């Protein structure tokens, strides 16, 4: 797989990033290096190895269904760039 200009534009759009031409060139080079490395990994024969999603052999970590107090609303909203009436205020969003 090669990351070309079209792909960089697409990834930028998905990540909601507006990139300048120079930044696009940089990102393109860096992502291509990562992809190249994946190609190296792909040369290893993994046909007898089960797919792994986690590095540690831990499973079934559960929590009991007991209610704990929620956080103070003012604390939760502390870092919000915009707020109104106890809610996060964002640009008008329609579905």
């Amino acid at each position: 797989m090669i990351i070309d200009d079209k792909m960089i534009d697409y990834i930028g759009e998905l990540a909601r990033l507006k990139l300048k031409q120079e930044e696009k060139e940089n990102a393109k080079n860096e992502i291509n290096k990562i992809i190249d490395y994946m190609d190296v990994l792909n040369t290893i024969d993994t046909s007898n190895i089960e797919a792994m999603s986690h590095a540690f052999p831990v499973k079934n970590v559960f929590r009991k269904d007991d209610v704990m107090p929620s956080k103070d609303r003012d604390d939760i909203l502390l870092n919000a760039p915009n707020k109104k009436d106890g809610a996060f205020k964002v640009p008008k969003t329609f579905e």
Partner: protein
Amino acid sequence: MEFLTTMGLEVHCELSTKTKIFCSCSTEFGGEPNTHVCEVCTGMPGSLPMLNEQVVEYAIRTGLATNCTITQYNKFDRKNYFYPDLPKAYQVSQLYMPICQNGHIDIEVNGVKKAIRIKEIHMEEDAGKLIHDPWDDCSLVDYNRCGVPLLEIVSEPDFESGDEVIAYLTKLKSILQYIDVSDCKMEQGSLRADVNLSVRPVGQTELGTRTEMKNINSFKAIARAIEGERKRQIEVITDGKKVVQETRRWDDNKGSSFAMRSKENAQDYRYFPEPDLVPIEISDEWIEKVKNGLPELPTAKKERYIAEYGLPEYDVDIITGSKYLVKIFEKATEICGEPKEVSNWIMGEVLRMASETSTEFEDIKFNPDSLGKLIVILKNKVINRNTAKEVFEKVFTDDIDPEKYIKENGLEMVTDNGAVEAIVKAVIEANPKAVAEFKGGSAKVKGFIIGQCMKQLKGKADPGTVNKIVAEELEKL
């Protein structure tokens, strides 16, 4: 040209756990904006999710009740997309290994039985709520619902008519309520359905291009949306155009659907395994334990009621269709031992009162024991049927105790035949004109006399007794 319709359903149901799926915030409905939130469900950097065990238990329960295979090794994935109702910019869901697979629900439409296959059921988190603020022309975000556990129940495209869809949803809702995993209140959004629909000319084997209609929140609206979208697609094809694969929103007020503003690349969710949550391994013992704890399900209950009590299928369908009516039926029957009578009362008075007072079955408040007691009182001829119906209205609206209410209001029937006789005599004496007509051969007058007697007795007499005494007294004339 004749067309065939094919539909599939994605049903989202909010689980009735006390806490959210990955944090200990309350799932209680309502509440001031952002008062049931913490660093986990608002997606603060550095916070870590921890799975609510009850969600897994409920998912297994739902899978078993819908004939699914439980995926004994399953895990979560991230579905990435940007939207302000989703603070992490990804939804934790299950794409690669959903917890339940390959089930089915049996439905019946116009006497025809059919199995609707369930492709999978997966666990995921609900999103927050966006409220439009017209003053500032902006949106306000409330994350109280964000992180409430959801099951997404995905069917195969097995539906061929709106009736089948409604039958499936009705059955699914009643199963989910029976097994106590969700209250399924559509008006509060705890049960929502997305409909995938395509049409194709008769004779064509491959399915047509489908569209998706999201979050329709009442059975009636779903039926209308299906009919509207089917017609629209047929028109598009008949006009020689092509149906575009897209998500459409059904506007139930306008009775038409429109394409949702095309979110470009929105379908590219870039799923990948959720690294913050470890895999779930469900043992045979766990499955067995959940299986043993399952209550009797609607279909089994229906068959048993018919076999054991000899009730009509139509009545049994209505009663077993709602766990709340089942509760009334079983408790009242336990008290009075008259299943047929209880069924008649439910089909008659309970349904009538529910409809007259616009009460949903789940909101019926009266103690079911009261209906059983009332039936016993009626059987013992303490009151007559008309009075019983009046007392039941009080039971339904105010949850009164029938025995106490009857005593306090002196509603017992006059059982002293002498007293009845005295009143009958008095009525006959007071109505010489009617008596003359009776003697002249008018049989109708007897009804009038009985009516007058019941009025004097304030309705508190056994109609059979009054009838008999009036006949006797008139004979004597």
